């Protein structure tokens, strides 16, 4: 007797029911074995029995919020959300991407992409990108590809202005729906926003797919709760949603009760580094909290008694015992939590790992390698979303091969911009012919002939000449603020009056006049600084001329705190990044260039000597105290190859490089130590040391410090001790304020090719 024939339908049923639910493809392949099996698997009875047997739906994957590969290829694809499958490679919906269906809608043209905000009960909530242009939300079911476009929220009060968050869920309460297969059922979306100005405080609206409209606005009974919500994952625990919420400068947890629709606050654990945690469910089904510190995963649970909330540490897991050793080469970050499964998603430079907090099972679910061009993990929504980007492909031909060949070492420092001012500026509204009052001149580091023949803007003494006319007042000059990724950021002087900033690419001579910052913030008072950086997150920055860029502006609030805004060349507008009433209260943002260390910008504060950290990933600002007796006006921030933050200072003919101990966990009481001391007396010519040298600038990426001694420029490599003197000239006739190094490849553009 043939064995197969012996298998009755009942037995086949028993066998196929036990195929793994996390590999849907295996069921499909089995269905194709023969007609009888196909009938069996497609039957409603089989599907019901399959769910009943396995109970918990598998995590099919997570949504990755991506910054697009090549934004120039299509205007519609700058942002998108891709499904990253956790399934075996032959999976059912692997890497499916959200594609909006309703092509007729007029708003579609303006949408540059989509970002996943939340995912639960088989549905995904997406929001159109960029923020603030078109406020569209869509609920998407990746399995059935059903899409529901939500109506726009009433615009009064502006629901988005002070931060918001939203969550999607099945409309049937936990008791009456097991959420194993509610794909086609009713759902609801909860929107929570905050409105400080009109005294409303927290408010919520609920969208119901049954009625197809948003509910009336319900404000919180306790309007003491105000602050800033962020779009990031929330958890659903025991019929309540929990959000992280930034109340002025500290975090609290916001509880939204789904049945009473009341909003209340739960205090955070005192003394916890509050940026780096994630709300989770606890083992006993309550609210939990996870954080990573020193390669340990801490799990805490919240005891919700009627009178107070108590946090207890429920588990400490040493990640060294769980993850492959090499996965911990970079600090792991929590990126998501799947609340139905108690699975945490952790990202390290090695990829994505799913950790079951109950069984401690670990599965590597996806690769996520920076080097491969996947970029940085940005944020997540459970099952999770992470923003990844991929490298843009440069033009073909010699230029590309040239850059590839020189991939290491990085692009050379072609020179630096020297900020000069002539005479003494006493009156801001001064006379005419003041064009050169403030000037930024280019000083090439190479010998005079080579770079000047290549590009007129990189000649010795060349200066920025604006192409477009000024908006209000004719500037009395320009000052270079920053340069990075081949671009230079300049602002016009005096800045309070002219209020102009330009991003200039000296290699291509492209100029972008940035729009004015909203004036109600008085952005230019109490000092300001800004940084320019490539806007392509996965870019290797070897040759991103002509690509998108961002400008991050840091200024003081009228009350003394600090705020940051970001300009994106893709949207062409400024948007709010973060602010704090307490950070940098007494300090004044200095104008020396900031540095970029793993997606955070650092700027020097004067008067109250501190370093201001502006984290672009978490959209937050914080401050780092400098060691006592260090004059913040005489330091230059530098970075190391290992990605650490240092600062350089010259004292008594010695160059000191200070490093911070464990930069991550002593945010305020940072401990600094002298990492390296370079004796300049042995390096510089003796006649240059008649006066103490000044440290002028730092070339990020090539690790060179620019010193000024005896009215001459020296470029020092602190690592190797190499010193090079820059040829005289170019910076005559003015007082040098500071220098801004310019790093780029510059391949000649020849007008006539040899036939």
């Amino acid at each position, binding site marked *: 007797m043939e064995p197969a024939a012996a298998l009755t339908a009942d037995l086949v049923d028993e066998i196929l*029911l036990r195929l*793994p639910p996390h590999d849907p493809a*295996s069921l499909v392949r089995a269905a194709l074995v023969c007609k009888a099996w196909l009938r069996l698997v497609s039957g409603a009875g089989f599907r019901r029995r399959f769910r009943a047997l396995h109970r918990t739906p598998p995590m099919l994957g997570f949504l990755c919020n991506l910054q697009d590969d090549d934004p120039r290829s299509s205007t519609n694809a700058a942002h998108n959300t891709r499904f990253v499958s956790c399934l075996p490679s032959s999976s059912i919906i692997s890497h499916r991407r959200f594609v909006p269906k309703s092509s007729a809608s007029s708003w579609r043209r303006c949408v540059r992409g989509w970002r996943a905000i939340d995912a639960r009960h088989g549905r995904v909530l997406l929001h159109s990108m960029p923020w603030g242009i078109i406020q569209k939300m869509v609920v998407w079911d990746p399995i059935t590809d059903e899409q529901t476009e939500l109506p726009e929220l009433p615009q009064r009060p502006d629901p988005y202005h002070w931060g918001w968050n939203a969550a999607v869920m099945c409309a049937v309460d936990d008791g009456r729906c097991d959420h194993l297969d509610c794909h086609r059922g009713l759902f609801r979306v909860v929107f929570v926003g905050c409105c400080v100005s009109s005294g409303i405080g927290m408010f919520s609206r609920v969208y119901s797919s049954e009625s197809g409209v948003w509910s009336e606005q319900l404000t919180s009974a306790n309007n003491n709760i105000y602050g800033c919500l962020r779009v990031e994952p929330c958890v659903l625990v025991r019929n309540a949603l929990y959000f992280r919420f930034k109340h002025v400068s500290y975090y609290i947890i916001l509880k939204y009760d789904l049945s009473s629709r009341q909003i209340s606050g739960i205090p955070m654990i005192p003394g916890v580094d509050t940026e780096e945690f994630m709300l989770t469910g606890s083992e006993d089904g309550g609210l939990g909290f996870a954080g990573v510190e020193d390669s340990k995963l801490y799990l805490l649970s919240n005891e919700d008694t009627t009178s107070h909330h108590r946090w207890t540490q429920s588990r400490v897991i040493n990640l060294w015992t769980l993850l492959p050793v090499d996965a911990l080469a970079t600090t792991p970050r929590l990126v998501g939590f799947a609340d139905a499964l108690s699975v945490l998603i952790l990202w390290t430079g090695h990829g994505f790992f799913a950790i079951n907090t109950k069984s401690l099972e670990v599965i590597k679910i996806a690769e996520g390698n920076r080097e491969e061009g996947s970029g940085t993990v940005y944020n997540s929504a459970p099952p999770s979303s992470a923003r990844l980007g991929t490298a843009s492909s440069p033009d073909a031909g010699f230029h590309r091969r040239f850059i590839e060949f020189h991939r290491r070492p990085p692009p050379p420092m072609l020179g630096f911009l020297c900020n000069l001012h002539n005479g003494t500026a006493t009156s801001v509204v001064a006379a005419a012919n003041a064009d050169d009052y403030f000037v930024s001149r280019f000083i090439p580091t190479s010998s005079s002939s080579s770079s000047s023949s290549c590009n007129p803007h990189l000649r010795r003494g060349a200066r920025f000449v604006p192409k477009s006319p000024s908006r209000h007042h004719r500037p009395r000059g320009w000052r270079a603020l920053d340069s990075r990724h081949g671009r230079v950021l300049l602002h016009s002087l005096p800045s309070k009056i002219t209020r102009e900033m330009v991003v200039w690419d000296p290699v291509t001579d492209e100029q972008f006049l940035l729009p004015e910052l909203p004036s109600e913030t008085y952005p230019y008072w109490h000092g300001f600084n800004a940084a320019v950086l490539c806007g392509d997150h996965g870019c290797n920055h070897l040759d991103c001329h002509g690509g998108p860029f961002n400008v991050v502006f840091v200024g003081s609030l009228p009350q003394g705190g600090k705020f940051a805004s970001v300009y994106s060349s893709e949207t062409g507008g400024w948007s709010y990044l973060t602010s704090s009433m307490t950070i940098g209260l007494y300090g004044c943002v200095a104008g020396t260039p900031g540095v970029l260390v793993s997606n955070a910008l650092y700027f020097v504060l004067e008067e109250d000597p501190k370093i201001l950290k502006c984290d672009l990933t978490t959209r937050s600002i914080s401050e780092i105290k400098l060691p006592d007796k260090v004059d913040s006006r005489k330091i230059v921030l530098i970075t190391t190859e290992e990605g650490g933050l240092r600062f350089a200072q010259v004292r008594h003919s010695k160059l000191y490089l200070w490093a911070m101990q464990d930069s991550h966990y002593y945010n305020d009481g940072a401990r600094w130590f002298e990492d390296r001391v370079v004796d300049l007396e042995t390096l510089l010519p003796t006649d240059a040391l008649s006066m103490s040298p000044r440290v002028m600038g730092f070339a990020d990426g090539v690790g060179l410090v620019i010193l000024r001694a005896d009215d001459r420029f020296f470029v020092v490599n602190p690592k190797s001790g190499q010193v090079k003197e820059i040829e005289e000239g170019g910076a005559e006739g003015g007082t040098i304020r500071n220098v801004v190094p310019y790093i780029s490849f510059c391949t000649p553009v020849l007008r006539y090719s040899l036939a």
Partner: protein
Amino acid sequence: MAAPESGDGNNGAARMVTLISSDNTRFEVEAAAASLSQTLQLTILDGGGGGGDGIPLPNVDSATLSKVLEYCIKHAPAAANGGAPNATAVDRAELERFDNEFVNIDQSVLYSLIMAAHNLEIEGLQSLVAKKVADMIKGKSPMEIRRTLGFPDPTPEEQAEMNAHMLEYGWAYE
């Protein structure tokens, strides 16, 4: 159903029953082990299978029956504890190890075992064997599954149909 005490001879030595395979081999086992089979449980509770008469099992040959009983004897103590909530982790680990070894057998034995488990309604065994077969076919293509399970080669019509489906579900093959 009725309580297990309803049987006779419940003093000291465990009650034994006799099972007779299709090829007339007699197996004497404890009633508790045989009662893992829902089918046999009723007969045993009615007092059958004791003494000389025995319970005939015309669908199960002796080789399969001895294998089935091996499973039943091992699992009977745990089952007697009513799903064994108080079983120690060691006990459970030992059972798991036994189960893994147990299904590590020739495919033809596996098929007769799953049929016997089905006929005798031994839930744990049925589940164990079905899982083993499911593990054997997961990750395999439809053709490989057919070969693994000893299906005859498909007829041209069947083949054409499979191909059509494969085109539609191309992603399932990667």
